[in-house]
């Protein structure tokens, strides 16, 4: 069944303000896929809260989901802001958009602790290896030896965001490439169904400052080097699955917490995304061999999320009344008596 048949929304209901990022920026393409993913899932726009830090990527939440609340906060501090907000109403879905500077440099601590707590939200890193708004400095994900106009040669080894997420016990880790919109969209859909932290590291070329042919965060390199682990399709819980569409044995299924399915169609090798050890190894291999491995690297839908640990009522905390929030006078009398 086509997901869009039941959808009472049009794609326009998910649009944002016009982008002020550069023409051809990978981030714009990711914004489009966020719009498409939410539209195809028929998510009520008001049920989403957007978060970002500071940087080009962090501007982008303005350019999608205009009917969703959002907070464009401080540089590197998106994680804590999102965590606090999402406690207010646990039926809301959080989508965070951060950059490589925002996450892998100034915000590394917050990022890793959000991951370790398994905060249920989508955490997208629009990773271009460069600081755009401050005009082209190296970021922590820039590869060693990268040459930039005013900066010279990068002397440091890069941070691998997907690996950082994995070693911090993330329950959903994916990598994608802005030049592969279908994969980006399917991963976002799967991430939105995940009851836990869902980290998607998306290589998103900066056409202005870091798009030299053959470098790690460029369109050409991504196009040449992208090695998808599988072809990913997301099936919402309400849709019937046409198993006959797939050749037997060629598809791996992951059942999500909400009953939806992630179908991973085998490409060259069968990759098991529930094996954390294999995920770490493939990232290591990718680093050594200069591959851009994309797809769902790791998933574990069984781990309780941070919110699950708090025994909160279904009624959102931010709709509670005085009768629920202020104890009776007799309670204070009791306390006074205890301390007298």
């Amino acid at each position, binding site marked *: 069944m086509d997901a869009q048949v039941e959808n009472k929304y049009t794609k326009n209901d998910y649009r944002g303000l016009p982008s002020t990022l550069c023409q051809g920026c990978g981030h714009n393409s990711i914004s489009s896929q966020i719009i498409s993913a939410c539209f195809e899932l028929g998510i009520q726009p008001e049920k989403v809260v957007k978060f970002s830090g500071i940087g080009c990527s962090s501007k982008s939440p303005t350019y999608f989901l205009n009917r969703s609340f*959002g907070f464009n906060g401080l540089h590197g501090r998106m994680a*804590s802001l999102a965590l606090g907000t999402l406690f207010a109403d646990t039926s809301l879905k959080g989508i965070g958009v951060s950059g490589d500077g925002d996450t892998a440099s100034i915000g590394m601590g917050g990022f890793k602790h959000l991951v370790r707590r398994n905060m249920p939200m989508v955490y997208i890193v629009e990773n271009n290896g460069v600081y755009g708004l401050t005009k082209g400095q190296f970021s922590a994900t820039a590869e060693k030896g990268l040459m930039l106009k005013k900066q010279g040669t990068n002397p440091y080894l890069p941070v691998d965001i997907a690996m950082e997420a994995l070693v911090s016990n993330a329950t959903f880790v994916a990598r994608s490439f802005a030049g592969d919109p279908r994969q980006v969209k399917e991963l976002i859909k799967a991430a939105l169904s995940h009851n836990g932290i869902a980290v998607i590291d998306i290589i998103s070329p900066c056409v202005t400052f870091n798009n030299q042919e053959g470098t790690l965060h460029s369109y050409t390199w991504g196009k040449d080097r992208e090695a998808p682990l599988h072809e990913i399709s997301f099936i919402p819980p309400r849709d019937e699955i046409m198993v006959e569409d797939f050749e037997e044995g060629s598809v791996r299924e992951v059942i999500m917490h909400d009953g939806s399915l992630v179908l991973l169609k085998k490409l060259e090798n069968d990759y098991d995304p529930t094996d954390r050890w294999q995920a770490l190894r493939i990232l290591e291999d990718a680093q050594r061999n200069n591959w851009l491995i994309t797809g769902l690297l790791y998933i574990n839908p069984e781990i309780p999320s941070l919110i699950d640990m708090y025994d909160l009522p279904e009624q959102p905390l931010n709709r509670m009344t005085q009768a629920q929030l202020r104890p009776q006078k007799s309670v204070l009398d009791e306390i006074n008596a205890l301390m007298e």
Partner: protein
Amino acid sequence: MNPQQKDIVNDFCITFATVNGSGSQTANNTILRALFKMGIPISGKNKFPSNIQGLPTWYSIRVSKDGYLGRLEQDDVLVCMNPASFENDLAFVNPGGVVLYPDDLKQPITRTDITAYPMPVKELSRAADISPALRDYIANMVYVGVLAWLLHIDMDEIAHALNHHFRGKQKAVESNFSVAQAAYQWAGENLTKTDPYRVERMAPLDDYLMTDGNTAGALGSIFGGVQFVAWYPITPASTLPEALIEFLPQYRKDPLTGKNTYAVVQAEDELAAIGMIIGAGFGGLRSLTATSGPGLSLMTEYAGLAYFAEVPTVIWDVQRVGPSTGLPTRTAQSDMTMAHNLGHGDTRHVMLIPGSVTECFEFGWKAFDIAEHLQAPVFVMSDLDLGMNQWMTLKFEYPDTALDRGKVLWEDDLEKRNGSWGRYADVDGDDIPYRTVPGNLHINAAYMARGTGHDTQAHYSEDPQVWETNLNRLVSKYYKARDLVPQPILERTSGVSQGVISYGSSDPAVIEARDLLRQRGFNLDKLRVRALPFTAEVEDFLREHEVIYVVENNQDGQMAQLLSQEFPALAGKLVKVAHNDGLPLSATWIVKTILKEGE
């Protein structure tokens, strides 16, 4: 006893010198509570090192029939259990004072003007029927018993206090009490009292209770409906969130579902702690963190965001001595100017300044009402002395006003307005805009909060006029807090031309100093500041007096600076009476300093 010597009753200072981590807290609290239950006004101050075990620590109990709670600089009765600090401690005993010491102490008692009583600590604690592992802890009960005999502390009250301390755990109560009892008996049979110090039962202190400011702040927050707490451990603030963790499960289950109406998250640092509470505040929750100077420094950038994006939240600063790591276990009032302007750019914050443990409770719930009404962060400025020491304090009063959630629009409200509203539009002319919170499903509810320049619709804007209009409104809104914050407490005598300003934990010493000065013919009107922005009464006080002494526990005279900044034309009248050495101010220091200035 010397026949000419008059008894000194209910008016002296006892100091216990012990080793950190040796379990003396139980013994000290027992004596404190026993005295309190005898109706004698007391205050207890713990002077402890930044250390887990081994360094010297002191606990002072002031008994004061007149109800003075400030610190005394000298001791009258010294209980010295720590050979390492003995010599120094001895020097702080007033002439005619008393020292109690374990009889196996090697050091000579070099003072001949004091009375010394040895105590057979080892012998009595060995005789007790308890496991050797607990023997060192229970050894402190020896001085409880000897002191009770010496000062006439009622042993029944000692038993009650132990019962209170161990929450009725009979075995612990009995093993401790038996040692105290044996020591009491030993003292009666072996000592001859030759000193003048003793206590006498007074009228019961029925209107009072005994606790610390951090516990009171936590309880006040619970009655203020706190819903989200994020914190990072730091002395001397940690016991506030720890009290929340203890009490929230008891008092804040949802009456309908039995589920939690709150969440507490221990953050990875103070940057995250404040980020979380600002996120929660934006989400429409009553949120709180508690920290101290170093943590507050880290919170600077986020505090500016909360001011500018107009997010309500409550930040407790339990102040300690800085700069830098400073003296982590000592008290100060030295974050006043920093907190007031915390953030880069033009920023100013509303601050509440509790001057008693009871006010820690009261301001605990009020802070949320003010924060949500104003849509701004509110800082509660406590300190180590108030926050961590035990105080006798007036019983807590139930909040007399309903929760003030401020101008929050829900679906129905937006429907009535046909969805027309602007997040930062001052439609009521009171500088306070309306807000919506995530979860509001109205099609026009959402907006994008941001730390960047924004117009009335919360859209990004770099327009110079939009920027300045907005920033001016924020200042104007700050002054609106004058009608919301606790008013200062004024004590006037007619015809007095000089005044004193106090605030926070320095107030007890100022109350006493004012009485001492009056006895010397020097009358001062007094104003206790309880909040910023300063209200009209503060300005009037400055106008109506020729000289105003501003007493505070810091080096720079930070309250005097804040007053000078607000009232530059009156600043010449202000006399800074400020110092900090890590200890609470004493009345004698204030008197000395003011008299010198007054010459």
